[in-house]
């Protein structure tokens, strides 16, 4: 049995159901230990009891898309290893929404700079 300690999904863009493939996710726990993870083709990442047992609270220090776009999470997880327990759709007063690399605004700006549509 594979026991997961932390797991989640990263989307390439806000409000679009496309996975962020090969995104880098860095987790830092209370004791200062880090876990550097890479998302799979479905955008999923996870740690197992064998690879990383976080000392709570932990923080996702950085999520970096394959193109180098980086986002940070500033709040901490005090006892929940399943990212989707808090990061669910839609964004609301009790959820920041799914984890994404590129915001809708940033995607529009990027498209504008490249002369295309987002």
């Amino acid at each position, binding site marked *: 049995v594979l026991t997961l300690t932390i797991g989640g999904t990263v989307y390439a863009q806000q409000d679009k159901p496309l996975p962020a493939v090969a995104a880098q996710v860095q987790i830092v*726990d209370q004791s*200062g230990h*880090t876990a550097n993870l890479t998302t*799979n083709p479905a955008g999923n990442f996870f740690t197992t009891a064998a690879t*990383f047992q976080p000392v709570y609270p932990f923080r996702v220090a950085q999520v970096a898309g394959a193109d180098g776009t980086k986002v940070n999470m500033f709040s901490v997880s*005090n006892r929940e290893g399943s990212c989707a327990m808090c990061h669910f759709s839609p964004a609301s007063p009790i959820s*920041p929404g799914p984890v994404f690399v590129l915001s809708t605004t940033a995607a529009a700006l990027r498209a504008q700079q490249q002369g295309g549509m987002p």
Partner: protein
Amino acid sequence: LKAIAARVLGIPAMVFLATLPAACSVAQGRIGIDAPPEDQFSVQNSVGDYLDHRCGSLDCHGQPGRNLRIWGCFGMRLDPKDISSCTIGSGTAQPRITTPDEYHATYRSLVGLEPAVMSEVMQSNAANPELLTFVRKARGLESHKGGRLITPGDDQDTCIVSWLQGNTDMMACGKAAFLYPMFLAPMGPDASTSP
């Protein structure tokens, strides 16, 4: 027999109910409690921010079902149109920070949790802060799902106790909120996996 007993018992009950409004009329005044200062709670990098960041995450006290509810941009928002997110704001984007209403709601949530005990603690200038359940839980003296979070004398404890004493140590609160190993840790590759 039951009907007779109900009637006999009902007469004193009716008399009691009839006199109740008069008996309660003396307690119509506003009831207050002694509470630590709200102005030292509701400013940036003070007690409110520390609690929001450290205790108010969505997996802990940033939930509507908790008896100690904490609001703020790091967790649960008060405005139903808002979303759980903190941003400083850039360009035309509006900053998303903890609002005065959220500080106020969290303040009331905390000081109203055990009003009589809070008054007692205030009257003794916080000589025994652990009389308050939230202090006991945070210090690990009582069962707490989040475990033991603070040690007497550390920045978190100093933040809380100094606030209860009416002279909040803002430096301690600021450090308590953000200066954790996870915010200072070097980005070293301790464990790397690719699912």
